């Protein structure tokens, strides 16, 4: 009865305002789409969304209620002081124990019940030490497939005091990325020590004994000034570069040479 009345009323409205029927059907369809969209929003968007920012506000409470898994970087020292002190003086000083041994809160609470894992296989160390060009220069990197394949890292390196098993023979052992670029650059003939003052102890304690770097434009001018200094102090490659000579004072102004020219791979063209 009520539907018949509504139908009659609808027809009257359509005729009264001359509304085409196809627009009514489309309007209904779009209306349904909008309702589905709004219902979807009400259903799927958490109520606390946007409370503090563009994220679910309750996420903070969720994180607060999580059980604490990690014990912290100094908790191990109470019982394992010898290993802790050894590591504190090593290259791994800033690598927390739990990075390799896993979360230790349960172990601290009851050492007898919960034992920490000690990874001895080959897979863990390459997470940090596999070759990746994005890693900083000097950071020890290997190509895992080629570096003593199949041999566990711990056979040669003590993870609590990691050192190369032998003193590196040359700069390229640690500075591989720079060495690769230098090898194909016009500076390939130059030995690293021409520009860098490298103490012998740098190979054993690289961070405590850092190599020197040129600090003024006159250093580059030894080869690249016009005219170049060909006295006995000049490096042996001076005669190999008849071009690339500039008036050092006027060419660079207040800039340093290496602010525009990368010394390990300078421009090849004239």
């Amino acid at each position, binding site marked *: 009865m009520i539907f018949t009345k509504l139908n009659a009323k609808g027809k009257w409205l359509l005729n009264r305002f001359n509304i*085409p*029927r*196809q*627009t009514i*059907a*489309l309007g209904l*369809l779009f209306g349904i*789409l909008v309702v589905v*969209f709004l219902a*979807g*929003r009400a259903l*799927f*968007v958490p109520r606390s*969304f*946007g409370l503090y920012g*563009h994220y679910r506000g309750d996420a903070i409470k969720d994180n607060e209620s999580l059980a604490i898994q990690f014990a912290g970087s100094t908790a191990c020292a109470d019982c394992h002081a010898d290993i802790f002190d050894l590591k504190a003086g090593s290259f791994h000083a800033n690598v927390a124990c739990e990075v390799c041994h896993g979360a230790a809160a349960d172990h601290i609470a009851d050492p007898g019940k919960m034992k920490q894992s000690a990874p001895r296989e080959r897979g863990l160390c390459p997470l940090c030490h596999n*070759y*990746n*060009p*994005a*890693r900083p220069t000097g950071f020890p990197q290997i*190509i895992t*497939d080629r570096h003593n394949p199949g041999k566990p890292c711990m056979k040669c390196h003590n993870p609590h005091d990691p050192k190369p098993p032998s003193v590196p023979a040359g700069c390229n052992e640690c500075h591989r*990325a720079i060495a*690769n*670029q230098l090898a*194909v650059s016009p500076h390939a003939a130059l030995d690293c020590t021409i520009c860098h003052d490298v103490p012998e102890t740098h190979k054993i304690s690289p961070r405590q004994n850092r190599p020197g770097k040129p600090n003024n434009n006159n250093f580059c001018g030894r080869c690249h000034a016009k005219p170049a200094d060909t006295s006995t102090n000049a490096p042996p490659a001076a005669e190999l570069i008849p071009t690339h000579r500039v008036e050092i004072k006027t060419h660079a102004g207040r800039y340093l040479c290496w602010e525009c020219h*990368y010394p*390990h*791979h300078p*421009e090849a063209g004239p």
Partner: protein
Amino acid sequence: MHESVADIAQIISGATGYVYPNEYLLQWGLLIVMYPFLTGLVAGAFILASLERVLGIKELFPVYRLSLLAALAFLLAAPLPLLAHLGHPERSLEMFLTPNLNSAMAMFGFVYAWYLLVVLLLEIWFDYRKQIVIWSREKTGAMKFLYKILSLGIDDISPEALRFDDKIGKFITIVGVPSAFLLHGYVGFIFGSVKANPWWSSVLMPVVFLFSAIVSGMAVVLLIYMVTAWFRWKKPGMACLHKMGELLLYAMLVDLALEMLDFIHRLYESEESIHILRDLVAKRLFISLIISQVVLGSLCPLVGIVFARFGKLPDEVRRMLYFLSAMLVLIGIYSVRWNVVIGGQLFSKSLRGLTVYKTSLLGMEGLFMSLGLFILPFVILYVLVKIFPPWTGNEESAGETAAPS
């Protein structure tokens, strides 16, 4: 982004100058090249259709519906390269549920939805409504059921109702033109607003993208029209081809002028990036920019279209010239997308070095995936043409003739 050690070694050895470590490997590959290419085809095909509808260019009548269906097919396939590149396609819905109003990409989701739901589908529905009702009466079985659903239960095809359909269709087209401009202007906007990248950062980028979109859309519709005509054993109408050729010529001239303007502006401005950009063009993009984009993709088709339209040639030769020119235009516009997307990642932000890009064949970012995503819209178009045959039977008046058997 799962290159082997050998690939990485090859890329690093191919790089020159100083490249920051995180710039050796490109983050955006073939799929991101395909995305602006496909959206460009959408916008271009729609704008071609709207020329017939809004400006009343009657020569384009045979391609009006084909253009709309092509735009829809490309629009349905266009987001797939992005979703395939990002992974987790289900997360894209969150952009609609909890949109970040400050994100151009998030807002574009709504532009996309508007364009699909309000512009393209509505225009096609109003344009086909009469046929849908007729087919829902004539067809049998599943097709009858499908057309019944598509008619939304409205079977009124009285002259008043059809007049209303025509009026509202025209209105939607008028609204649709700025929407199509937005659709592709946005893609250029995304690249143009990356201020750290001197190859991309330009206010002209959205406009250049838009006109290259119009060029590519017209070219692809021209090709689709010729191929579908041959499959129907018809000769493509010369009046329609001439008009499309003319419009393509004008759009290409504007596009070329804008690109030259951008180029000259960069040269004259001579910012600190000009040296690396010169190296980029000379050493990395010479084939894809100078040869493929400028010579093959712009100059050759310009000459081809001028000869086909204004030369004294037999119709068969004209058709062949149009076909070849449109193919070259598509190759040229794909090269534009390649040069923007890949080119913009080949030089270091240090402005002192260039890296290299190595295309893989297999995998999500590989050549075959990209090819598949390019073929997909044509499959969708085939299905759409089966459901909504765009030929009304009046094409003969537009110059189409039956091919001699």
